[in-house]
């Protein structure tokens, strides 16, 4: 049997998801009630059935499709964003975001400090000017930010 690739994994994942929605819809939520008509599971169950049929067809068609190719560096974006999100719990979201821009440009792109500073200035102005000062979004300060805030008070 040939190895599965993502062209098959996507419809298989869709079938799994639809089955979960189908089972929960029928068993927990209910499909039809004689006096009240359609129950909360009615609509998702019907859509789940259609999704299973479409996914099975997509699975069948995937045999004749060429394999999807992935570039390792595309996943650097996911890794970088994951680290940014994780760091935000420690040092806060805005410092993490700005640090991320610096590290990305220095480590991944090997840019000069001058270019890094220019890009940081542009994105920093947008983020702080628009989101912090104008929209007044209460961004998380992180554990360290909270401690420093506590000292200052």
């Amino acid at each position, binding site marked *: 049997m040939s190895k599965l690739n993502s062209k098959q994994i996507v419809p298989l994942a869709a079938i799994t998801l639809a089955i979960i929605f189908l089972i929960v819809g029928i068993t927990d*939520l209910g499909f039809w009630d004689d006096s009240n008509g359609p129950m909360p599971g009615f609509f998702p169950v019907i859509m789940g059935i259609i999704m299973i049929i479409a996914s099975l067809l997509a699975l069948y068609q995937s045999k004749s499709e060429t394999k999807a*190719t992935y570039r390792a560096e595309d996943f650097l974006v996911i890794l970088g964003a994951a680290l940014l999100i994780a760091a935000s719990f420690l040092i806060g979201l805005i410092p993490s975001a700005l640090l991320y*821009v610096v590290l*990305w440009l220095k480590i991944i792109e090997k840019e000069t400090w001058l270019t890094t500073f220019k890009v940081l200035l542009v994105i920093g102005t947008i983020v702080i000017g628009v989101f912090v000062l104008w*929209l007044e979004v209460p961004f998380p300060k992180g554990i360290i930010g909270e401690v420093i805030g506590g000292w200052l008070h």
Partner: protein
Amino acid sequence: MDNLMLLLDGFHTVLTLQNVLVVAIGAILGLVVGAMPGIGSLAGVALLLPLTYKFNPTTAIIMLGSLYYANMYGGSFSAILLNIPGDNPAVMTALDGYPMATQKGRPGQALFTANLSSFIGGTIGMLILTFIGPQLANVGLKFGPAEMTAILLIAMTSISWLVGENPTKGIMITMLGILIACVGMDTLSGSPRYEFGNMWLLGGIPFTPFVIGTVGFSQVMKLMKDRYKVVESEFMNKRLTIKGSMLTRSDVKRLLPPALRSGFLGTFVGVLPGAGATTGAFMGYGVQKAFKNKEPLGTGALEGVAACEAANNAAAAGAFAPLLALGIPGSGTGAVLLGGLLMWGLTPGPLLFQNESEFAWGLIASLFVANIITLAIALMVIPFLIKILTVKVKYMIPCITVICIVGSYSTSNSMYGVLVMFFAGILGYLLYKNEYPTAPMLLAFVLSPLLESSMRKTFIISGGSVSIFFEKPISLVLLICLAAIVATPIVRSIIKWVRQANHKKIHMS
């Protein structure tokens, strides 16, 4: 005449200093983001959505309208100067725009033609919208739950079944959008559903972070392959000026007939579900071929640029008619716009023009204002366009990532929004890599609650019988349309198969 009076009231709502400034900001941002390489109108509108949170609902909606509309202008710039279409409708603009700029040596005039034609097409589209929008809403008022279910099925099927290479994948992805939208609370009873004991999931999947992830964050991953691409342009060292870009009297004479014709054609294409600005641009260009042109199309003819640019902006304006009057967007960008309107408590649909008249006419009037302001700004940015268009992708990657994360936090005020954006981005990237279109998923996600409540109400009325759809004349006609839409790709593949079989037979004999 009533409509014109109501439109004047709309102008009264829009023409405050704050609103005009907001339209101008929306126009500048929409234009710049629309022109930037690799972003496109769908991701552009999604990324700019958080900016509307600062305003009151009317102003926020006005800003959304101008963002959406200005994005339509931006796509043509890179098509003309770099031969890289900024969005799908601009593919046709590149055919004549780029040769006009390079071979004919008239880059400024090509840009001016695109801007002026976009303005003319958009104005025609908005004028027609002023009259047909409320008429369409009157038709919509006759719709009960059965008719609403049928029209929503048409809207979803037309985009998932007809748009894209593979109808099966379109249907699958539509269903995925619907199931994701089912998470949270049941639309009719309000009881929890598919939350799997999770407090965050109980509130459902938030719209803005989901859209920012699916189209914005996934776009960053797609951009990685282009990060070292060097954008070459022969205009890099030349300075384009506004004065040097002016059209001659003879140019304007050549521009007007195709722009007016495509303006009308594009509007009607835009009103049809599933056929948006791209179809409008293709049809506008196709029709122009049948008319006399001073230069052959494809060799840098001004008429070619005018025809497709007027058609795509007219289609973008025309698409507002079903969006406002029936609550049905014709494209992924329209779905994002609809989501934004719903977020602001405005429910597009047949009752909109009656119950939320100020909103509806304010939005339509804001499109007129946005059209004028965008034209002015689009002309003023001509000298700076090369700088905007040649921003290096490698600098945009960390910047867009940060905007995605900060923007999704700002719309939900919680890290849950950021996580939704993050996972939706990975989903969007996987779907792209496996050739699944994301626009049907967004459309389904937005329309799912309305489809579910209409469908359930229909079955409550009929006691579970599907015959209700065939008993009412409007829903019967709509179902016939639905059947025709479903049959189209099937018939097309049968014809293709028969042709191939005949071809083989001829070769064999």
